[in-house]
Each structure stands twice: as C-alpha cells, then as structure tokens.
C-alpha cells in the first residue's frame, strides 16, 4: 500500500457538437495517506467519476499530476485496483477465476493463485460461490466478488466508482458494513466515489465534497469503528455530519 498525491489536476476536453471547450475537473489537489479511506461525494456531473478515471489511468488528464507512491500515473496498472458500478466481472470466468485473474496476470501459478482467491472469497463470505458464474449470482454477491477481485491483486490504491449504486437498499447497507470490516482487516488505501452523502460519511475517514469540478471542502469523519448502521442511524454526530455535507453539496 502506498499513498496517493494529486496536484492541480484538471481535465478539459473539446465538445465537438457544442463546439466549445468543457472543463470537467478544475485544479484539484488532494492527498491520501497510506491506509486511509476517503470518500468523494457530489451530484452527478460534478466530475467525480472523471477524477477516478484519471487516477485509474483510463483517461488522460489535461494538466497537473497524479502520483501513486511518488510515481506518476501513465495509463492503467495493477497498482490501482478498480471496483466498477457495473461490477465488470468476466462472465466467462467462474467467481474463483475472476478473483484469481489479477494474480494470474502477474504470473502466479495455478495452485498459489487459487489459494489466494479462496482466502479473499472467505473474507467476503463467498466461499460457497467459488465455482459459479457471475451471471448466476445476485447483484450484491457480484459486487462482493468485484471488491475482492480488486483486493486479491494487492493494489496500492483501491478505487471504487459508486460500487453500491446498483444494488437494493438493504443489500447496500450490508455491503457498506462489510466494506468497513474488510478495510479494517486489510487496510488498503481507498478512494470511494459516491453521490450518497450518508454512504460517504459512513465509510470514510474523510469526505471530500465536490461540485462543478471543484473541491468545496474536506470534512474529517472521526466516528468510531467498527461502524454499524443500527447504531449510526440514531447517532447525533453522524446525523450532524451528514447534515453538514449535504448542506455543502446542495448549496453549491
């Protein structure tokens, strides 16, 4: 695990249909310490997914720099694991093979990579599903696979792009609790993108509020862990914190 530093990051592109230059992300600076968990929250179109795609190396940035462990980002790489909103599991691979995919790509032998995969599947309580195809699992289970597939490759930074936005509300709460549990067990550096303010506060050590491509403010979340919805739902500090972030995001 390594730290992530973003300096004066901007993204502008030319909209050929409108014939104008569009700025999606404007001069953002951010630093995430090793083993930290931050959420980036904002309404749709605020540029949060663009930021994540630039960190992942899926799209180039226009100016500024992105450093992972001091090294500048050039394209996608296995030092940055990604969890997608659409899960993006390989439909033609079993759950076990999906999780073993990263180790396979870096040349780990079959027995060893399956051992790694089994270990991570157990962490997400997925051992039973190892031999099944993604298509045969519920959405919530598919995304558990998505999370451990990224983690099994031991990335320096884990990038999560609204990973729980397409599962039902009850499953989402379970997944959120499980994510905090897994994070405490493995302590990866996490950047979590979401439009859900309560989710952002529940998960993170720090919430970055974003609007129209700019950082509005950063709010430290010093709620005790392990975090459980049953307790936090009634917690006054949690309520006031989500209230503050919500106000911030809505006012901009």
């Amino acid at each position, binding site marked *: 695990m390594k730290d992530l530093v973003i300096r004066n990051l901007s993204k502008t592109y030319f909209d050929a249909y409108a014939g104008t230059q569009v700025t999606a992300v404007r001069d953002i600076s951010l630093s995430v310490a090793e083993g930290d968990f931050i959420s980036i929250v904002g309404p749709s179109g605020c540029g949060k997914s663009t930021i994540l795609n630039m960190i992942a190396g899926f799209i180039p940035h226009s100016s500024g720099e992105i450093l992972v462990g001091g090294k500048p980002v050039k394209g996608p790489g*296995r030092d940055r694991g*990604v969890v*997608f909103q659409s899960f*993006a599991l390989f439909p*033609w691979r079993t759950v076990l093979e999906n999780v073993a*995919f990263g180790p396979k*790509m870096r040349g780990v032998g079959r027995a060893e990579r399956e051992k790694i995969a089994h270990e991570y599947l157990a962490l997400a309580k997925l051992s039973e599903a190892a031999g099944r195809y993604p298509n045969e699992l519920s959405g919530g289970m598919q995304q558990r696979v998505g999370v451990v597939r990224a983690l099994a*490759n031991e990335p320096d930074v884990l990038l999560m792009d609204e990973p729980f936005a397409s599962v039902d509300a009850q499953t989402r709460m379970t997944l959120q609790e499980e994510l905090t549990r897994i994070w405490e067990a493995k302590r990866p550096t996490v950047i979590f993108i979401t439009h859900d303010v309560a989710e952002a506060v529940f998960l993170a050590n720090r919430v970055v509020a974003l609007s129209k491509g700019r950082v509005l403010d950063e709010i430290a979340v010093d709620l005790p862990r392990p975090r459980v919805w049953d307790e936090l739902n009634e917690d006054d500090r949690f309520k006031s914190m989500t209230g503050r972030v919500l106000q911030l995001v809505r006012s901009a």
Partner: protein
Amino acid sequence: MTEFPLKLWGHYVRLTARWPSIGSLAPFLPVIAAWWIVTELQIFPRVFLPGPGEVVRSFGSLVYTGILPEYLQDSLVRLVVGAFWGVAIGVPLGILIGLSPRAHSALWPPLLFFQAIGDIAWLPILVIWFGYGLVTVTVVIVYTVIFPVIINTVLGVRSIPITLHRAALSLGASRARMIWEVILPGALPNIMTGMRNGLGYGWRALIATEIIVGTSGIGFMMFDARRAGSVVEILLGMIILGILWYIVDSWILAPVERATGQRWGLVTR
C-alpha cells in the same frame, strides 16, 4: 372421451423426455404422411414424384454400392476444409477490424464490396483460374464462410463493455493478453453466430458449386441424377442436405452455444 387424447399426450411427453430425438422427428411425420398420400393417390406421375418408399430403397442401394458414402464424405471434407480456413482467417481479421479504427476504415469498404459479389458469381473466373477441382470448391466455401464470420466477430468485439477492458487492464493484463482473456471470450457468442450463418451459407454454396464444377459430392449426385432422369436420387439428395445440416446444427453448434454464451448469461435462452 377427453381422457384418451390426454393420456396419449402424456405418453408422448414422457417418450420425448426420454429420447429427445423422437421429439425432433415428430414434426416431420405429417410432411412424410402427406407426401405418401399424394404419391399413393397418383396425382402426379410416379416418374415426376416418387414416394417415400422408393426414396428409402434408392438410399439403400446407393449405400450398398458405396456411391453415397463416398460422395457424402467428399462433400463433408470440402465443407470442413473450407470452413476451417474461413474461420481461421475470418476471426483474426474480425478482431483486428473490431479493435483498430485504422484497420476498420481501411478494410471495411472493400469487405462490403466483395461481400456483394456472391460466391457463385466468382465461379466463372475461378474455373478459368483453377479449373474444375478442389481448389475452386474450397475458394468458394472460404469466400462464403468468411464474411458472416468477419462481420459477426467485429460486432462481438465492439459489443464488449468498455468496463471489461478497463477491469482487465487495471488487474495487470497486457494488451496482448487482453485478446485471449477478454476479446475472444467476449466476442465468442457473436463468433458462434457468424460460424453458424457461415456454415449454413457454405453448405448451400458447396452444393451449388458441386452442381456446376463437381466431379463428386451430393450436389454432383443430384445433378447427375437429373441427367439420368432419376427423380428419386434428386429427392434423396435434397433430404440428405436437410438431415445433415440438422445434425451439424443440433449436435455440434447448439451444444457449444449452450456451454458458452448461454451459461455465461451473454445469450438469452
């Protein structure tokens, strides 16, 4: 009185559950029965339309003399050789065109141009170039198989969600490995569709080619029978074409499709 047909139906359902091939034969029974009745009533002269019994007898004697097995083998070998090259060239080309915009803009227009010149339209010039032989037949089949394979492969490659590319890259897959790990399996259901269409067209083109340039094969047998005025053998040839295609499709292509695309949820049942 209503119980009897229901009971009969129950027997039929159990029977076809045990031997599914009976279920696929059943739809042909009325056709054969109608054919038999028409010939028995002597609506058309026997020489123009022989009955099922005569066709079966002709099948028996052609098998006995060894002509039919030999011709069948010739036709199938030609189809397999042609289909092999069609797929071996078509799939890599389809992947190239699907992945590279440059390859697409360079190859797509000629592809459409040559697709429009039907396989049979090549025969006159192919006969001049390669004569009445296996080369001409193979070229025609490759030509027929390759277009549906290329076009469906391109479609398959392009329909792979971008997130799957991204997921593989961020898990450390190299560009070369992407082809084997993501592109090929992702495009496989479409490649299968292309092969299915290609083989179907190829089979038809083969028979047409054999009629024109052949010296053996099912198509040649049918055309030769016309010269001899033997309608029985023409009908036999037609029936064999249908049965063979049914076997290729339901014993080879369909099981592969069930084991891949359907299992993965990429194709709806």
